[in-house]
């Protein structure tokens, strides 16, 4: 092909065809991709499908809420340095990418017929479906917490929004000398260091305003799941005498009215009680029959995030079964691998056989001090997993510099997924 013809092709916005000396498929990506879920994973997937897939794709984002509330930084609402409104956005920044937004509830996913059904009964057919539903709570072991009324008394606040505001209000109303108890489920759950960041934020608030109070941490895990040394040191040095940590303490029952939680060993009476329930893949992934691991998480091909059991259904974010942290950065990294793979598949090409990405996750231990865990992950073709590369690790100590980085991590993330 002559160079001027090649440039004309580029100018016309067509997919890159042949490059001198390099054979390539000339076809542009065509087809309809539906994305269910407009959180970090789903919004990033929709945007990057357009950036990388070109104008030939029809992209539909189905999200029940008209606002996006960031879980990252939402523990700072409990500490008092953020308000929920600081973390709440609309989706209008995605309109420039010609993404059709449908704010509706998905009521069925028919993977065999390649269509979804939304409330009202309308069907939408797809060529590829991305399900990014986040987490669903599993109340099998704590049925008394399932109702909205019970959650008024004992919020989980593990999806940022009204429950975060409720938990903050309960802390503000608590007497000095009161007990805040938090129950942490067995891993895996959304945001491995999140519960311990929450403890730090509540400690930050109580130390200033209610210093006679106490925090009891009932952790179902045998030890702190993430950044253990850093959290242990921060609690001892910054909040001495305030935090009492009890490992191997699974919540087995809750007295909702009394705000009392029962473990296998003891009953703990609290003034403010925060039970984070066990979790599983979000409902839309369950509807697609994709939650095949213990009926809980979704097994995927890490080259494309296509479900191992539901063809043409891709699962990204917290619902994925993997030894990977369920973090917002991880969700966006998976979204980008998935979007890139779908563009290749719709062109009749194979996905990149060697995906590599990074994950950085910050935790705040006060209003200003933060610390990180960071790793590069690379596809291991023998094990067919994303494996952490050597060289990753955690901060030496919490610092104000990292606090500032963490604030800008969030702003860059919001820009990257919503703008």
């Amino acid at each position: 092909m002559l160079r001027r013809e090649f440039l004309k092709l580029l100018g016309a916005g067509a997919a890159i065809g042949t490059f001198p000396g390099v054979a390539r498929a000339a076809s542009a990506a065509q087809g309809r991709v539906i994305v269910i879920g407009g959180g970090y994973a789903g919004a990033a997937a929709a945007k990057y499908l357009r950036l990388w897939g070109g104008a030939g794709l029809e992209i539909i984002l189905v999200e029940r809420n008209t606002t996006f509330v960031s879980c990252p930084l939402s523990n700072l609402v409990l500490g008092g340095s953020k308000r929920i409104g600081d973390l709440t956005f609309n989706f209008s920044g995605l309109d420039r990418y010609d993404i059709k937004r449908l704010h509706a509830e998905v009521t069925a996913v028919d993977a065999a017929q390649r269509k979804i059904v939304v409330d009202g009964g309308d069907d939408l057919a797809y060529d590829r479906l991305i399900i990014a539903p986040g987490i669903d709570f599993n109340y099998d072991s704590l049925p008394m917490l399932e109702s909205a009324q019970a959650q008024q008394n004992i919020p989980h606040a593990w999806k940022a929004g009204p429950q975060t505001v409720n938990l903050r209000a309960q802390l503000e109303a608590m007497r000095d000398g009161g007990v805040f108890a938090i129950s942490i489920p067995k891993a895996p759950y959304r945001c491995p260091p999140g519960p311990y960041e929450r403890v730090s934020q509540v400690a930050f608030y109580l130390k200033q305003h209610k210093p006679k109070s106490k925090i009891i941490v009932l952790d179902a895990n045998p030890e702190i799941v993430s950044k253990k040394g850093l959290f242990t040191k921060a609690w001892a040095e910054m909040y001495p005498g305030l935090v009492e940590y009890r490992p191997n303490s699974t919540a087995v029952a809750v007295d909702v009215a009394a705000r009392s939680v029962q473990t296998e060993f003891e009953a703990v009476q609290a003034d403010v009680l925060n039970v984070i329930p066990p979790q599983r893949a979000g409902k839309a992934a369950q509807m697609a029959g994709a939650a095949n691991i213990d009926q809980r998480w979704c097994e995927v091909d890490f080259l494309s995030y296509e479900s191992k059991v539901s063809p043409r259904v891709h699962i990204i974010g917290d619902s994925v079964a993997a030894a990977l942290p369920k973090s917002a950065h991880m969700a966006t990294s998976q979204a980008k691998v998935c979007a890139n793979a779908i563009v290749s598949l719709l062109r009749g090409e194979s996905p990149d056989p060697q995906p590599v990405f990074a994950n950085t996750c910050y935790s705040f231990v006060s209003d200003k001090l933060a610390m990180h865990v960071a790793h590069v992950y690379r596809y291991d073709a023998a094990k067919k997993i994303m494996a952490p590369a050597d060289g990753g690790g955690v901060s030496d100590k919490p610092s104000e510099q990292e606090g500032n980085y963490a604030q800008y991590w969030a702003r860059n993330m919001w820009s990257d997924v919503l703008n």
Partner: protein
Amino acid sequence: MRVKSLNAWLALACLALPALSSAESGGHIRVLAASCAACHGTDGNSVGGTPVLAGLDRTHFILQMQAFRSGERSSTVMHHHAKGLTPDEIEQLAGYFSAQPRSIGTSPLPLGAL
């Protein structure tokens, strides 16, 4: 060795535009580069608080990443990423980011007090 591989990369870069060469390998590098967006913004156009990578000179990028790897340049976070990447990935990322146009990254406005 370091200089040699850098020269080899630069010689290759004269033959193919970096953005095109990344598209040749199934988008491998653009996906890796996009995972830097969490801190450095879409296409390396940070909204502030972290360095802008878009349009950064590729030799400068490579030298900084090598300094993070060796500890010659101290860092809070970047050494954890630089040590996890291969020299080849660092070179390709340098090419990718140097080819990205600079723009002012903007964060969406929060909806305010709720």
